[in-house]
């Protein structure tokens, strides 16, 4: 099963081949090249796959794999495919395109997808921006007991337990990768900034100064 494995479209072998275990394929022999090979792997993954993992399987430099992934994603878009390739939650994966959600939901879920209540959304927002956070603290922000809502979010896989508060021992919660996916985010850093919604410093100062108005 050995063969010349000096892969790499750009001529740089990922490893210096000599005396090493060889791969049973040459990426260039494939009619669709590295791009099609990447597509094939994407068909079998059940979680976002990193560029590094793909690069290792294909014996290609990570940069090449990243470039192919970007190109594939663009290709799917320009061809108006029903699916797309997105980097979400830290890795690449094939998703249905959101325009076709009604059809997919009809097919997969037999109808509409349950939507979150306003209370659940608010609780989710507090957890997303303040994680890891205890239920009590979320309740403090929302001004109401959130136990039931947190249970709902747990059951929906949007939040998960994320350790314990050292002092109080209270369970802390954080968001899941599924949350990132449902938000169309690659990482928590991409959450819309909260700052614009918070009052500016001068408003707060004004408040403080107005004490004896």
């Amino acid at each position, binding site marked *: 099963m050995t063969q010349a494995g000096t892969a790499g479209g750009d001529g740089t072998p990922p490893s210096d081949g000599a005396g090493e275990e060889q791969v049973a394929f040459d990426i260039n022999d494939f009619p669709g090249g590295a791009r099609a090979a990447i597509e094939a792997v*994407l*068909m*079998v993954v059940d979680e976002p796959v990193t560029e590094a993992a793909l690069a290792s399987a294909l014996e290609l430099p990570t940069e090449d794999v990243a470039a192919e992934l970007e190109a594939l994603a663009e290709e799917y878009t320009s061809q108006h495919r029903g*699916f797309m390739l*997105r980097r979400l939650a830290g890795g690449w*994966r*094939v*998703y*249905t*395109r*959101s325009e076709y*959600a009604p059809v997919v*939901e009809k097919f*997969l879920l037999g109808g509409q*997808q349950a*939507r*979150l*209540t*306003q*209370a*659940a*959304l*608010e609780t*989710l*927002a*507090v957890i*997303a*921006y303040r994680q890891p956070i*205890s239920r*009590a603290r979320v309740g*403090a*922000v*929302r*001004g*109401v*007991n*959130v*136990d*039931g*809502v947190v249970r709902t979010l747990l059951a929906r896989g949007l939040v998960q337990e994320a350790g314990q*508060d050292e*002092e*109080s*021992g*209270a369970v802390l919660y954080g968001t899941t990768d599924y949350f990132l*996916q*449902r*938000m*169309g*985010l690659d990482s928590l850093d991409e959450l*819309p900034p*909260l700052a614009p*919604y*918070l*009052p500016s410093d001068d408003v*707060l100062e004004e*408040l*403080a100064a*107005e004490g*004896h108005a």
Partner: protein
Amino acid sequence: MAAPPEVSAGPDLAEAGAGDAAVPGGVIHRREGQPFEVHLDVFSGPFELLLGLIAKHKLDVTEIALAKVTDEFVAHIRTAQQAARDWDLSEASEFLLVAATLLDLKASRLLPTQREDDEEDLALIEARDLLFARLLQYRAFKQVATELGERMATVGRIFPRDVGVEDRFSRLLPELVMGVAPEQLAAVAAQAMVPKPPPTVGIEHLHAGHVSVREQAGLVVARLRRQPRCSFRDLVADADSTLVIVARFLALLELFREGVLAFAQDEALGGLDVHWEGPAEGAVGATEIGSEFDEGDPAPAGPGGET
């Protein structure tokens, strides 16, 4: 102990994600022939209600002229209490705290005092700023939640390919590392099967400090035994923070529920007198007092006092 009420349910709220800045002014909206109702499915907390009232009167959140809002808020609480006697205590206490702060604010504006360095004044300013800060924070999260809801309804409305490997590849799945001894499995199973204790609600979140309702209950009981008739004011005369006052008040409510004391109040908003009716010594279930509030404290053994 009543399970916490479903504070918000109903698909009718889904549209709130569509930028409807929810004016729960409708909350205290009087329906034909019906008393005021607590529509817990329409709003879900004092901040929600307060924002609704503020929006209704087109006041800026930072506007201090809240007298009218205060009146409506207090009216709402009163009717809510009448409408639902089993109001969740933790929720009710949150409402009461907001109401108390608002009333303090209103009172301070009605009284022509200019006591610059009065401690009460300072505390008042602190309370007001705390309330506003929390209100503003809540508003920010509410708005960003709307944005998250929109993302969920658009760019997030996608489905990953999660098909699993074809049969021809299934033998290639990486070897599963179990690393679990049968005893561990038993422990995991046992843990999963034990009914989860009902979640507790702490009051430590109301302020930074940590005051134990249980401890305050012990203190209140000791004092009442010494002086069986006592005003609430006296009971909290030495309290060094609002939180201690709240904790003692909650402790009194719990003791009231235990049937060991009675309240007397001659007129609305008048002084509150407390009459001790419990045994002169011995436990009064005080070990459980506060278990509902004192998050993180080791839960005392023994069922919740009704026995």
